[in-house]
Protein backbone atom coordinates (compact mmCIF):
# COMPACT_ATOMS: atom_id res chain seq x y z
CA UNK A 1 0.00 0.00 0.00
CA UNK A 2 2.76 2.46 0.97
CA UNK A 3 6.31 2.06 -0.23
CA UNK A 4 9.08 4.54 0.47
CA UNK A 5 12.57 4.33 -0.88
CA UNK A 6 15.70 6.04 0.37
CA UNK A 7 13.80 8.96 1.86
CA UNK A 8 15.82 11.97 2.93
CA UNK A 9 14.60 15.19 4.47
CA UNK A 10 17.04 17.93 5.25
CA UNK A 11 16.01 21.15 6.98
CA UNK A 12 18.34 24.12 6.63
CA UNK A 13 18.85 25.76 10.06
CA UNK A 14 20.92 28.85 9.44
CA UNK A 15 24.30 27.71 8.16
CA UNK A 16 23.85 24.09 9.17
CA UNK A 17 21.63 21.38 7.78
CA UNK A 18 19.60 19.05 9.96
CA UNK A 19 18.93 15.59 8.60
CA UNK A 20 15.42 14.86 9.84
CA UNK A 21 15.23 11.69 7.73
CA UNK A 22 18.34 9.98 6.54
CA UNK A 23 17.64 7.27 4.01
CA UNK A 24 14.43 5.62 5.19
CA UNK A 25 13.06 2.59 3.35
CA UNK A 26 9.72 1.23 4.43
CA UNK A 27 6.71 -0.74 3.27
CA UNK A 28 3.31 -0.65 4.90
CA UNK A 29 0.68 -3.19 3.93
CA UNK A 30 -3.07 -2.69 3.77
CA UNK A 31 -4.95 -3.10 7.08
CA UNK A 32 -1.79 -2.78 9.18
CA UNK A 33 -1.78 -0.81 12.46
CA UNK A 34 1.74 0.60 12.55
CA UNK A 35 3.35 2.51 15.37
CA UNK A 36 6.24 4.86 14.68
CA UNK A 37 8.22 5.31 17.87
CA UNK A 38 11.45 6.85 18.95
CA UNK A 39 12.91 9.63 21.04
CA UNK A 40 12.19 13.32 20.47
CA UNK A 41 13.90 14.61 17.31
CA UNK A 42 14.23 11.14 15.83
CA UNK A 43 12.14 12.08 12.77
CA UNK A 44 8.80 10.41 13.68
CA UNK A 45 6.56 13.36 12.82
CA UNK A 46 8.63 14.21 9.74
CA UNK A 47 8.18 10.66 8.46
CA UNK A 48 4.44 10.79 9.16
CA UNK A 49 4.13 14.11 7.32
CA UNK A 50 6.00 12.64 4.33
CA UNK A 51 3.72 9.60 4.27
CA UNK A 52 0.67 11.80 4.65
CA UNK A 53 1.75 14.15 1.81
CA UNK A 54 1.86 17.11 4.18
CA UNK A 55 5.51 17.70 3.33
CA UNK A 56 7.80 16.76 0.49
CA UNK A 57 11.08 14.86 0.81
CA UNK A 58 14.43 16.34 -0.15
CA UNK A 59 15.18 13.12 -2.03
CA UNK A 60 13.60 9.72 -2.26
CA UNK A 61 10.29 8.29 -3.44
CA UNK A 62 6.94 7.70 -1.84
CA UNK A 63 4.40 5.49 -3.54
CA UNK A 64 0.89 5.05 -2.24
CA UNK A 65 -1.24 2.50 -4.05
CA UNK A 66 1.37 2.57 -6.81
CA UNK A 67 1.12 6.35 -7.32
CA UNK A 68 4.38 8.29 -7.13
CA UNK A 69 3.38 11.15 -4.87
CA UNK A 70 6.24 13.33 -6.13
CA UNK A 71 4.63 13.57 -9.55
CA UNK A 72 1.34 15.03 -8.27
CA UNK A 73 0.46 18.70 -8.55
CA UNK A 74 -0.60 20.69 -5.49
CA UNK A 75 -4.27 20.30 -6.36
CA UNK A 76 -3.88 16.55 -7.01
CA UNK A 77 -2.16 16.18 -3.63
CA UNK A 78 -5.07 18.00 -1.96
CA UNK A 79 -7.58 15.72 -3.64
CA UNK A 80 -5.45 12.69 -2.78
CA UNK A 81 -5.55 13.69 0.88
CA UNK A 82 -9.29 14.31 0.71
CA UNK A 83 -10.22 11.04 -0.96
CA UNK A 84 -7.56 8.64 0.33
CA UNK A 85 -6.15 9.84 3.66
CA UNK A 86 -7.33 10.79 7.12
CA UNK A 87 -5.45 12.67 9.85
CA UNK A 88 -5.55 12.96 13.61
CA UNK A 89 -3.32 15.58 15.16
CA UNK A 90 -1.79 15.90 18.59
CA UNK A 91 -3.77 19.04 19.44
CA UNK A 92 -7.05 17.81 17.89
CA UNK A 93 -7.02 20.66 15.32
CA UNK A 94 -10.77 21.08 15.19
CA UNK A 95 -12.27 24.19 13.62
CA UNK A 96 -13.27 26.23 16.70
CA UNK A 97 -16.24 27.94 15.02
CA UNK A 98 -17.87 24.69 13.87
CA UNK A 99 -19.97 22.39 16.02
CA UNK A 100 -19.02 18.77 16.61
CA UNK A 101 -21.18 17.50 13.74
CA UNK A 102 -20.02 20.27 11.36
CA UNK A 103 -16.38 19.46 12.15
CA UNK A 104 -16.95 15.77 11.47
CA UNK A 105 -18.77 16.14 8.18
CA UNK A 106 -16.57 18.96 6.81
CA UNK A 107 -14.23 16.73 4.71
CA UNK A 108 -17.20 14.68 3.47
CA UNK A 109 -19.03 17.79 2.30
CA UNK A 110 -16.25 18.44 -0.20
CA UNK A 111 -16.37 15.03 -1.83
CA UNK A 112 -18.25 14.71 -5.07
CA UNK A 113 -19.02 11.02 -4.46
CA UNK A 114 -21.03 11.83 -1.31
CA UNK A 115 -24.51 13.28 -1.22
CA UNK A 116 -25.74 15.40 1.68
CA UNK A 117 -27.93 12.54 2.88
CA UNK A 118 -24.96 10.19 2.86
CA UNK A 119 -22.56 12.41 4.77
CA UNK A 120 -25.19 13.41 7.31
CA UNK A 121 -25.96 9.74 7.93
CA UNK A 122 -22.23 8.92 8.12
CA UNK A 123 -21.65 11.73 10.63
CA UNK A 124 -24.55 10.56 12.76
CA UNK A 125 -23.32 6.94 12.68
CA UNK A 126 -19.75 7.81 13.65
CA UNK A 127 -20.79 10.18 16.44
CA UNK A 128 -23.12 7.51 17.83
CA UNK A 129 -20.27 4.98 17.64
CA UNK A 130 -17.93 7.21 19.63
CA UNK A 131 -20.64 8.24 22.08
CA UNK A 132 -20.77 11.92 21.18
CA UNK A 133 -24.06 12.14 19.27
CA UNK A 134 -25.66 13.90 22.23
CA UNK A 135 -23.00 16.61 21.96
CA UNK A 136 -23.28 17.09 18.22
CA UNK A 137 -24.28 20.76 18.52
CA UNK A 138 -21.55 21.68 20.97
CA UNK A 139 -18.50 23.70 20.02
CA UNK A 140 -15.03 22.13 20.52
CA UNK A 141 -14.29 24.47 23.45
CA UNK A 142 -17.25 22.97 25.30
CA UNK A 143 -15.71 19.47 25.20
CA UNK A 144 -12.96 17.79 27.22
CA UNK A 145 -9.62 16.95 25.59
CA UNK A 146 -10.57 13.30 25.21
CA UNK A 147 -13.90 14.19 23.62
CA UNK A 148 -12.21 16.63 21.22
CA UNK A 149 -9.75 13.96 20.16
CA UNK A 150 -12.60 11.52 19.54
CA UNK A 151 -14.27 14.16 17.35
CA UNK A 152 -10.97 14.57 15.47
CA UNK A 153 -10.88 10.81 14.90
CA UNK A 154 -14.47 10.88 13.70
CA UNK A 155 -13.56 13.63 11.23
CA UNK A 156 -10.59 11.59 10.03
CA UNK A 157 -12.62 8.46 9.31
CA UNK A 158 -15.86 10.01 8.01
CA UNK A 159 -14.61 9.63 4.43
CA UNK A 160 -13.50 6.02 5.03
CA UNK A 161 -9.93 6.85 4.01
CA UNK A 162 -7.53 4.14 2.83
CA UNK A 163 -4.96 5.20 5.42
CA UNK A 164 -5.37 6.97 8.75
CA UNK A 165 -2.41 8.97 10.07
CA UNK A 166 -2.24 9.92 13.72
CA UNK A 167 0.47 12.17 15.11
CA UNK A 168 0.80 11.54 18.85
CA UNK A 169 -2.98 11.63 19.32
CA UNK A 170 -2.68 10.92 23.05
CA UNK A 171 0.01 13.46 23.84
CA UNK A 172 -2.41 15.85 25.55
CA UNK A 173 -4.60 13.21 27.18
CA UNK A 174 -4.52 11.44 30.51
CA UNK A 175 -4.14 7.66 30.65
CA UNK A 176 -7.86 6.98 30.76
CA UNK A 177 -8.63 9.13 27.74
CA UNK A 178 -5.53 7.84 25.95
CA UNK A 179 -6.74 4.29 26.40
CA UNK A 180 -10.18 5.28 25.11
CA UNK A 181 -8.62 6.76 21.98
CA UNK A 182 -6.31 3.81 21.41
CA UNK A 183 -9.17 1.36 21.90
CA UNK A 184 -11.11 3.32 19.29
CA UNK A 185 -8.20 3.06 16.83
CA UNK A 186 -7.92 -0.67 17.52
CA UNK A 187 -11.63 -1.14 16.98
CA UNK A 188 -11.56 0.80 13.70
CA UNK A 189 -8.56 -1.22 12.52
CA UNK A 190 -10.10 -4.57 13.42
CA UNK A 191 -13.66 -3.94 12.34
CA UNK A 192 -13.10 -2.00 9.11
CA UNK A 193 -9.61 -3.13 8.16
CA UNK A 194 -8.46 0.47 8.24
CA UNK A 195 -4.71 0.98 7.74
CA UNK A 196 -3.43 3.13 10.60
CA UNK A 197 -0.02 4.76 10.94
CA UNK A 198 0.46 6.32 14.36
CA UNK A 199 3.32 8.21 15.92
CA UNK A 200 3.84 7.74 19.65
CA UNK A 201 6.55 8.06 22.24
CA UNK A 202 4.68 6.30 25.02
CA UNK A 203 6.06 2.81 25.54
CA UNK A 204 2.78 1.35 26.79
CA UNK A 205 1.08 2.18 23.46
CA UNK A 206 3.04 -0.57 21.71
CA UNK A 207 0.59 -3.20 22.93
CA UNK A 208 -1.90 -1.77 20.43
CA UNK A 209 0.40 -1.81 17.37
CA UNK A 210 0.79 -4.76 15.02
CA UNK A 211 4.20 -3.52 13.96
CA UNK A 212 6.52 -0.90 15.41
CA UNK A 213 9.03 1.17 13.47
CA UNK A 214 11.71 2.61 15.75
CA UNK A 215 13.55 5.68 14.54
CA UNK A 216 16.68 7.35 15.78
CA UNK A 217 18.48 10.27 14.14
CA UNK A 218 16.28 9.97 11.05
CA UNK A 219 16.98 6.29 10.47
CA UNK A 220 14.97 3.18 11.11
CA UNK A 221 16.87 1.32 13.77
CA UNK A 222 14.46 -1.48 14.47
CA UNK A 223 11.27 -3.00 13.17
CA UNK A 224 9.21 -5.22 15.42
CA UNK A 225 6.21 -7.09 14.23
Amino acid at each position, binding site marked *: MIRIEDLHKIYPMGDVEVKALDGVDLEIAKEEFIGIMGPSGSGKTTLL*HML*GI*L*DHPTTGKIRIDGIDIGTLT*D*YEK*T*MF*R*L*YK*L*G*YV*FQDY*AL*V*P*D*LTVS*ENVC*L*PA*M*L*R*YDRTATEYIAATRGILQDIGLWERKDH*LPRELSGGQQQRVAIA*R*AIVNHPDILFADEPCANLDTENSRMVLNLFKKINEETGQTIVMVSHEDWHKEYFERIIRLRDGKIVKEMG
Partner: protein
Amino acid sequence: MGKKELKVAFLLSLRSLQRGSRSSTLMTVLIVSLCFTNMIFLPGLFNGIGQSITKQVVDYEVSNVLITPRPGDQYITDLSATLDLINRMPGVERATPHYTKAATLKYGDRMLGVGVRAIVPSDEKYVSPLYTTMIAGNYLGDGDTGEVIIGKSVAGDPSIRQEDEFQPSLGGVRVGDSITIEYGNGYISDYQVKGIYATGWSESDNTVYVTMSDMEIVEGKVLDRADYITVKAKPGYSEKFIKDELQSYGVAEEVQTTADLLSKSMGRALQSFAIINMVSLIVSIIITTVVLFVVITIKTLSSRKQIGILKAIGVDKEVIMHTYGFQVIILAIFGILLGILMTSLLALYMSVNPVVTPEWSASLYLTPRDIITNSLILLGAAIVAGYIPAWRIAREDIQKSMRS
Protein backbone atom coordinates in the same frame (compact mmCIF):
# COMPACT_ATOMS: atom_id res chain seq x y z
CA MET B 1 -14.41 25.59 -8.16
CA GLY B 2 -17.70 23.77 -7.89
CA LYS B 3 -20.91 24.21 -5.97
CA LYS B 4 -19.76 21.96 -3.11
CA GLU B 5 -16.58 23.95 -2.57
CA LEU B 6 -18.48 27.24 -2.59
CA LYS B 7 -21.01 25.79 -0.14
CA VAL B 8 -18.25 24.74 2.27
CA ALA B 9 -16.48 28.11 1.89
CA PHE B 10 -19.75 29.89 2.65
CA LEU B 11 -20.45 27.68 5.67
CA LEU B 12 -16.97 28.31 7.08
CA SER B 13 -17.22 32.06 6.55
CA LEU B 14 -20.70 32.26 8.03
CA ARG B 15 -19.71 30.26 11.10
CA SER B 16 -16.59 32.35 11.57
CA LEU B 17 -18.70 35.51 11.60
CA GLN B 18 -21.44 33.98 13.76
CA ARG B 19 -19.15 32.44 16.35
CA GLY B 20 -16.02 34.54 16.07
CA SER B 21 -15.41 37.89 17.75
CA ARG B 22 -18.73 39.77 17.66
CA SER B 23 -17.18 43.09 18.64
CA SER B 24 -14.71 42.86 15.74
CA THR B 25 -17.53 41.98 13.32
CA LEU B 26 -19.76 44.82 14.53
CA MET B 27 -16.88 47.31 14.46
CA THR B 28 -16.00 46.35 10.88
CA VAL B 29 -19.63 46.63 9.77
CA LEU B 30 -19.87 50.02 11.46
CA ILE B 31 -16.70 51.30 9.77
CA VAL B 32 -17.91 50.14 6.35
CA SER B 33 -21.28 51.79 6.97
CA LEU B 34 -19.63 55.07 7.97
CA CYS B 35 -17.44 54.95 4.86
CA PHE B 36 -20.55 54.35 2.76
CA THR B 37 -22.29 57.28 4.45
CA ASN B 38 -19.25 59.45 3.84
CA MET B 39 -19.20 58.39 0.18
CA ILE B 40 -22.82 59.25 -0.40
CA PHE B 41 -23.42 62.16 1.98
CA LEU B 42 -21.43 64.94 0.28
CA PRO B 43 -22.59 64.13 -3.27
CA GLY B 44 -26.15 63.84 -1.89
CA LEU B 45 -25.87 67.23 -0.20
CA PHE B 46 -24.38 68.84 -3.30
CA ASN B 47 -27.14 67.29 -5.40
CA GLY B 48 -29.63 68.65 -2.89
CA ILE B 49 -28.13 72.13 -3.22
CA GLY B 50 -28.19 71.79 -7.02
CA GLN B 51 -31.81 70.60 -6.97
CA SER B 52 -32.80 73.39 -4.60
CA ILE B 53 -31.12 76.05 -6.72
CA THR B 54 -32.59 74.61 -9.92
CA LYS B 55 -36.09 74.56 -8.41
CA GLN B 56 -35.78 78.13 -7.16
CA VAL B 57 -34.35 79.34 -10.46
CA VAL B 58 -37.25 77.68 -12.29
CA ASP B 59 -39.88 78.88 -9.79
CA TYR B 60 -38.79 82.46 -9.28
CA GLU B 61 -36.45 83.42 -12.13
CA VAL B 62 -36.68 81.79 -15.53
CA SER B 63 -39.38 79.10 -15.39
CA ASN B 64 -38.82 76.36 -18.00
CA VAL B 65 -37.81 78.53 -20.92
CA LEU B 66 -36.45 82.06 -20.89
CA ILE B 67 -36.80 84.44 -23.82
CA THR B 68 -34.46 87.42 -23.77
CA PRO B 69 -33.85 90.22 -26.27
CA ARG B 70 -31.75 89.59 -29.34
CA PRO B 71 -28.07 90.48 -28.91
CA GLY B 72 -27.75 94.26 -29.18
CA ASP B 73 -31.39 94.89 -28.22
CA GLN B 74 -32.34 96.18 -24.77
CA TYR B 75 -35.94 94.93 -24.79
CA ILE B 76 -38.23 92.40 -26.36
CA THR B 77 -40.45 94.61 -28.46
CA ASP B 78 -43.90 93.99 -29.93
CA LEU B 79 -44.70 92.24 -26.65
CA SER B 80 -48.43 91.62 -27.14
CA ALA B 81 -47.97 89.87 -30.46
CA THR B 82 -45.05 87.86 -29.16
CA LEU B 83 -47.00 86.72 -26.06
CA ASP B 84 -50.03 85.82 -28.21
CA LEU B 85 -47.84 83.74 -30.47
CA ILE B 86 -46.13 81.91 -27.63
CA ASN B 87 -49.30 81.28 -25.65
CA ARG B 88 -50.93 79.59 -28.65
CA MET B 89 -48.07 77.14 -29.15
CA PRO B 90 -48.47 73.49 -28.17
CA GLY B 91 -46.89 72.60 -24.88
CA VAL B 92 -46.95 76.15 -23.52
CA GLU B 93 -48.87 76.56 -20.27
CA ARG B 94 -48.34 80.33 -20.12
CA ALA B 95 -45.83 82.97 -21.12
CA THR B 96 -45.49 86.05 -18.95
CA PRO B 97 -43.41 89.24 -19.33
CA HIS B 98 -41.09 90.89 -16.84
CA TYR B 99 -39.92 94.45 -16.86
CA THR B 100 -37.43 95.60 -14.25
CA LYS B 101 -36.47 99.12 -13.34
CA ALA B 102 -33.82 100.24 -10.88
CA ALA B 103 -35.18 102.27 -8.01
CA THR B 104 -34.49 103.57 -4.52
CA LEU B 105 -36.93 102.70 -1.75
CA LYS B 106 -37.43 105.07 1.16
CA TYR B 107 -39.08 104.19 4.46
CA GLY B 108 -38.57 106.44 7.43
CA ASP B 109 -34.87 107.19 7.53
CA ARG B 110 -33.99 104.04 5.59
CA MET B 111 -33.05 104.01 1.91
CA LEU B 112 -32.52 100.90 -0.16
CA GLY B 113 -31.57 100.38 -3.80
CA VAL B 114 -33.50 97.53 -5.45
CA GLY B 115 -34.87 96.37 -8.79
CA VAL B 116 -38.61 96.90 -9.10
CA ARG B 117 -40.02 94.11 -11.22
CA ALA B 118 -43.24 94.64 -13.14
CA ILE B 119 -45.37 91.55 -13.78
CA VAL B 120 -48.82 90.56 -14.96
CA PRO B 121 -50.01 89.01 -11.66
CA SER B 122 -52.65 86.67 -13.13
CA ASP B 123 -50.25 85.27 -15.74
CA GLU B 124 -47.44 85.07 -13.21
CA LYS B 125 -49.57 82.68 -11.16
CA TYR B 126 -49.31 80.08 -13.97
CA VAL B 127 -45.56 80.44 -14.18
CA SER B 128 -44.32 81.05 -10.65
CA PRO B 129 -45.49 79.96 -7.19
CA LEU B 130 -44.69 83.47 -5.91
CA TYR B 131 -48.36 83.99 -4.97
CA THR B 132 -48.15 81.00 -2.61
CA THR B 133 -45.28 82.49 -0.64
CA MET B 134 -47.08 85.44 0.91
CA ILE B 135 -46.30 85.61 4.63
CA ALA B 136 -48.37 88.74 5.20
CA GLY B 137 -51.05 90.62 3.24
CA ASN B 138 -52.11 89.66 -0.26
CA TYR B 139 -50.76 89.03 -3.71
CA LEU B 140 -51.15 91.65 -6.44
CA GLY B 141 -54.17 91.90 -8.74
CA ASP B 142 -53.83 92.79 -12.43
CA GLY B 143 -55.43 96.22 -12.07
CA ASP B 144 -53.64 97.22 -8.87
CA THR B 145 -51.88 100.58 -8.90
CA GLY B 146 -50.09 102.32 -6.07
CA GLU B 147 -49.51 98.95 -4.39
CA VAL B 148 -46.46 96.72 -4.18
CA ILE B 149 -45.50 93.39 -2.73
CA ILE B 150 -42.04 93.20 -1.26
CA GLY B 151 -39.67 90.43 -0.31
CA LYS B 152 -39.02 89.55 3.34
CA SER B 153 -35.39 90.65 2.99
CA VAL B 154 -36.46 94.06 1.71
CA ALA B 155 -39.09 94.51 4.44
CA GLY B 156 -36.55 93.74 7.17
CA ASP B 157 -37.01 92.94 10.84
CA PRO B 158 -37.77 95.79 13.29
CA SER B 159 -36.12 93.86 16.13
CA ILE B 160 -32.71 93.96 14.42
CA ARG B 161 -30.69 97.14 14.62
CA GLN B 162 -29.48 98.54 11.31
CA GLU B 163 -25.81 97.97 12.11
CA ASP B 164 -26.54 94.35 13.02
CA GLU B 165 -28.34 93.50 9.78
CA PHE B 166 -26.89 90.81 7.54
CA GLN B 167 -28.01 92.81 4.51
CA PRO B 168 -29.61 96.24 4.23
CA SER B 169 -33.41 96.42 4.51
CA LEU B 170 -36.18 98.91 5.17
CA GLY B 171 -35.99 98.02 8.86
CA GLY B 172 -39.38 96.44 9.44
CA VAL B 173 -41.99 97.45 6.88
CA ARG B 174 -45.45 96.00 7.55
CA VAL B 175 -48.43 95.39 5.32
CA GLY B 176 -50.34 98.63 4.88
CA ASP B 177 -47.25 100.82 5.39
CA SER B 178 -46.40 103.38 2.77
CA ILE B 179 -43.00 103.42 1.11
CA THR B 180 -41.60 105.89 -1.38
CA ILE B 181 -40.09 104.61 -4.61
CA GLU B 182 -37.77 106.83 -6.63
CA TYR B 183 -37.14 105.35 -10.09
CA GLY B 184 -34.05 105.83 -12.18
CA ASN B 185 -35.99 108.05 -14.62
CA GLY B 186 -36.77 110.49 -11.81
CA TYR B 187 -40.36 109.35 -11.22
CA ILE B 188 -41.23 109.36 -7.51
CA SER B 189 -44.36 107.92 -5.93
CA ASP B 190 -45.66 106.54 -2.65
CA TYR B 191 -46.87 102.93 -2.65
CA GLN B 192 -48.79 100.97 -0.10
CA VAL B 193 -47.32 97.59 0.82
CA LYS B 194 -50.04 95.09 -0.14
CA GLY B 195 -48.11 91.99 0.86
CA ILE B 196 -44.81 90.57 2.00
CA TYR B 197 -43.51 87.28 0.60
CA ALA B 198 -40.69 84.91 1.46
CA THR B 199 -39.56 82.52 -1.27
CA GLY B 200 -36.26 81.47 0.30
CA TRP B 201 -34.54 82.47 -2.93
CA SER B 202 -32.31 85.44 -2.17
CA GLU B 203 -32.64 87.09 -5.58
CA SER B 204 -36.42 87.05 -5.40
CA ASP B 205 -36.67 88.08 -1.74
CA ASN B 206 -34.62 91.20 -2.54
CA THR B 207 -37.10 92.32 -5.17
CA VAL B 208 -40.20 94.52 -5.19
CA TYR B 209 -43.09 93.58 -7.48
CA VAL B 210 -45.54 96.00 -9.08
CA THR B 211 -48.12 95.45 -11.79
CA MET B 212 -47.44 96.23 -15.44
CA SER B 213 -50.22 98.86 -15.17
CA ASP B 214 -48.23 100.63 -12.45
CA MET B 215 -45.03 100.45 -14.48
CA GLU B 216 -46.86 102.06 -17.42
CA ILE B 217 -47.58 105.00 -15.11
CA VAL B 218 -43.89 105.14 -14.18
CA GLU B 219 -42.81 105.06 -17.82
CA GLY B 220 -45.62 107.39 -18.82
CA LYS B 221 -46.70 105.22 -21.76
CA VAL B 222 -48.22 101.90 -22.69
CA LEU B 223 -45.56 99.24 -22.30
CA ASP B 224 -45.34 96.93 -25.26
CA ARG B 225 -41.92 95.69 -24.31
CA ALA B 226 -40.26 93.50 -21.69
CA ASP B 227 -36.81 92.67 -20.37
CA TYR B 228 -37.59 89.01 -20.69
CA ILE B 229 -40.43 86.53 -20.98
CA THR B 230 -40.65 83.37 -18.92
CA VAL B 231 -42.48 80.36 -20.35
CA LYS B 232 -44.01 77.53 -18.35
CA ALA B 233 -44.30 74.16 -20.10
CA LYS B 234 -47.38 72.01 -19.79
CA PRO B 235 -46.87 68.72 -17.95
CA GLY B 236 -45.36 66.12 -20.27
CA TYR B 237 -43.61 68.63 -22.52
CA SER B 238 -39.87 69.01 -22.28
CA GLU B 239 -38.07 72.31 -22.13
CA LYS B 240 -36.17 71.33 -25.26
CA PHE B 241 -39.45 70.72 -27.09
CA ILE B 242 -40.72 74.21 -26.16
CA LYS B 243 -37.43 75.80 -27.19
CA ASP B 244 -37.47 74.03 -30.56
CA GLU B 245 -41.12 74.97 -31.10
CA LEU B 246 -40.44 78.62 -30.28
CA GLN B 247 -37.57 78.73 -32.71
CA SER B 248 -39.52 76.94 -35.40
CA TYR B 249 -42.45 79.36 -34.94
CA GLY B 250 -40.11 82.20 -35.75
CA VAL B 251 -39.50 83.71 -32.32
CA ALA B 252 -36.42 85.69 -33.15
CA GLU B 253 -35.35 86.46 -29.59
CA GLU B 254 -32.77 84.48 -27.63
CA VAL B 255 -34.44 81.28 -26.35
CA GLN B 256 -32.82 79.28 -23.57
CA THR B 257 -33.98 76.40 -21.44
CA THR B 258 -33.30 76.18 -17.70
CA ALA B 259 -30.70 73.52 -18.41
CA ASP B 260 -28.94 75.86 -20.88
CA LEU B 261 -28.85 78.62 -18.30
CA LEU B 262 -27.75 76.43 -15.41
CA SER B 263 -24.94 74.90 -17.40
CA LYS B 264 -23.64 78.41 -18.05
CA SER B 265 -24.18 79.88 -14.61
CA MET B 266 -23.48 76.85 -12.47
CA GLY B 267 -21.09 74.89 -14.65
CA ARG B 268 -18.03 75.86 -12.62
CA ALA B 269 -19.76 75.26 -9.29
CA LEU B 270 -20.89 71.83 -10.47
CA GLN B 271 -17.33 71.05 -11.54
CA SER B 272 -16.10 71.99 -8.07
CA PHE B 273 -18.78 69.80 -6.51
CA ALA B 274 -17.69 66.93 -8.75
CA ILE B 275 -14.06 67.31 -7.66
CA ILE B 276 -15.00 67.36 -3.96
CA ASN B 277 -17.24 64.33 -4.50
CA MET B 278 -14.41 62.47 -6.18
CA VAL B 279 -11.97 63.26 -3.34
CA SER B 280 -14.55 62.16 -0.78
CA LEU B 281 -15.20 58.96 -2.75
CA ILE B 282 -11.51 58.10 -3.05
CA VAL B 283 -10.85 58.74 0.66
CA SER B 284 -13.80 56.53 1.62
CA ILE B 285 -12.68 53.74 -0.69
CA ILE B 286 -9.13 53.90 0.67
CA ILE B 287 -10.35 53.79 4.29
CA THR B 288 -12.68 50.86 3.58
CA THR B 289 -10.02 48.98 1.64
CA VAL B 290 -7.39 49.48 4.33
CA VAL B 291 -9.76 48.56 7.18
CA LEU B 292 -10.98 45.38 5.50
CA PHE B 293 -7.45 44.50 4.41
CA VAL B 294 -6.23 44.83 8.00
CA VAL B 295 -9.21 42.91 9.41
CA ILE B 296 -8.78 40.00 7.01
CA THR B 297 -4.98 40.04 7.32
CA ILE B 298 -5.30 39.76 11.11
CA LYS B 299 -7.94 37.04 10.75
CA THR B 300 -5.81 35.02 8.34
CA LEU B 301 -2.60 35.46 10.32
CA SER B 302 -4.28 34.40 13.55
CA SER B 303 -5.80 31.40 11.75
CA ARG B 304 -2.66 30.25 9.96
CA LYS B 305 -2.46 27.00 11.85
CA GLN B 306 -6.12 26.30 11.27
CA ILE B 307 -5.65 27.05 7.57
CA GLY B 308 -2.79 24.54 7.53
CA ILE B 309 -5.01 21.93 9.20
CA LEU B 310 -7.83 22.55 6.73
CA LYS B 311 -5.43 22.09 3.84
CA ALA B 312 -4.08 18.94 5.48
CA ILE B 313 -7.53 17.34 5.69
CA GLY B 314 -8.14 18.01 2.00
CA VAL B 315 -9.69 21.48 1.84
CA ASP B 316 -8.46 23.14 -1.34
CA LYS B 317 -6.71 26.51 -1.10
CA GLU B 318 -9.41 28.12 -3.23
CA VAL B 319 -12.04 27.08 -0.66
CA ILE B 320 -9.91 28.69 2.05
CA MET B 321 -9.48 31.83 -0.03
CA HIS B 322 -13.22 32.09 -0.64
CA THR B 323 -13.89 31.50 3.07
CA TYR B 324 -12.23 34.82 3.83
CA GLY B 325 -13.53 36.41 0.62
CA PHE B 326 -17.12 35.57 1.59
CA GLN B 327 -16.54 37.00 5.06
CA VAL B 328 -15.50 40.30 3.51
CA ILE B 329 -18.47 40.25 1.14
CA ILE B 330 -20.88 39.58 4.03
CA LEU B 331 -19.27 42.30 6.17
CA ALA B 332 -19.36 44.74 3.26
CA ILE B 333 -23.01 43.94 2.44
CA PHE B 334 -24.09 44.46 6.05
CA GLY B 335 -21.97 47.62 6.22
CA ILE B 336 -23.55 48.94 3.05
CA LEU B 337 -27.07 48.10 4.28
CA LEU B 338 -26.39 49.87 7.57
CA GLY B 339 -24.89 52.76 5.58
CA ILE B 340 -28.05 52.97 3.45
CA LEU B 341 -30.15 53.00 6.63
CA MET B 342 -28.00 55.72 8.21
CA THR B 343 -28.06 57.80 5.02
CA SER B 344 -31.83 57.39 4.69
CA LEU B 345 -32.31 58.55 8.29
CA LEU B 346 -30.05 61.52 7.58
CA ALA B 347 -32.03 62.29 4.43
CA LEU B 348 -35.27 62.08 6.41
CA TYR B 349 -33.90 64.38 9.11
CA MET B 350 -32.64 66.88 6.55
CA SER B 351 -35.93 66.88 4.66
CA VAL B 352 -37.52 68.15 7.89
CA ASN B 353 -34.56 70.34 8.86
CA PRO B 354 -32.90 71.45 5.63
CA VAL B 355 -29.62 73.35 5.53
CA VAL B 356 -30.77 76.94 5.04
CA THR B 357 -28.55 79.77 3.83
CA PRO B 358 -29.54 83.20 2.51
CA GLU B 359 -28.90 81.86 -1.01
CA TRP B 360 -30.53 78.44 -0.90
CA SER B 361 -31.95 75.76 1.27
CA ALA B 362 -30.99 72.15 0.69
CA SER B 363 -31.70 68.65 1.92
CA LEU B 364 -30.05 65.37 1.00
CA TYR B 365 -30.95 64.38 -2.55
CA LEU B 366 -30.29 60.69 -3.16
CA THR B 367 -31.24 58.65 -6.18
CA PRO B 368 -31.40 54.83 -6.36
CA ARG B 369 -28.67 55.07 -8.99
CA ASP B 370 -26.32 56.90 -6.56
CA ILE B 371 -26.96 54.28 -3.89
CA ILE B 372 -26.45 51.34 -6.25
CA THR B 373 -23.31 52.83 -7.84
CA ASN B 374 -21.68 53.62 -4.50
CA SER B 375 -22.67 50.23 -3.09
CA LEU B 376 -21.06 48.43 -6.01
CA ILE B 377 -17.89 50.55 -5.80
CA LEU B 378 -17.59 49.84 -2.07
CA LEU B 379 -18.31 46.15 -2.55
CA GLY B 380 -15.66 45.97 -5.27
CA ALA B 381 -13.10 47.66 -3.03
CA ALA B 382 -14.01 45.32 -0.17
CA ILE B 383 -13.61 42.22 -2.33
CA VAL B 384 -10.14 43.34 -3.45
CA ALA B 385 -9.19 44.18 0.16
CA GLY B 386 -10.36 40.81 1.44
CA TYR B 387 -9.14 38.51 -1.28
CA ILE B 388 -5.53 39.74 -1.39
CA PRO B 389 -4.59 38.61 2.17
CA ALA B 390 -6.77 35.51 1.78
CA TRP B 391 -5.01 34.59 -1.46
CA ARG B 392 -1.59 35.14 0.11
CA ILE B 393 -2.28 33.00 3.15
CA ALA B 394 -4.10 30.27 1.21
CA ARG B 395 -1.11 29.56 -1.03
CA GLU B 396 1.27 29.21 1.92
CA ASP B 397 2.96 25.85 2.39
CA ILE B 398 1.06 23.46 4.73
CA GLN B 399 4.05 22.87 6.97
CA LYS B 400 4.72 26.59 7.33
CA SER B 401 1.07 27.21 8.22
CA MET B 402 0.85 24.31 10.65
CA ARG B 403 4.04 25.30 12.44
CA SER B 404 2.90 28.91 12.98
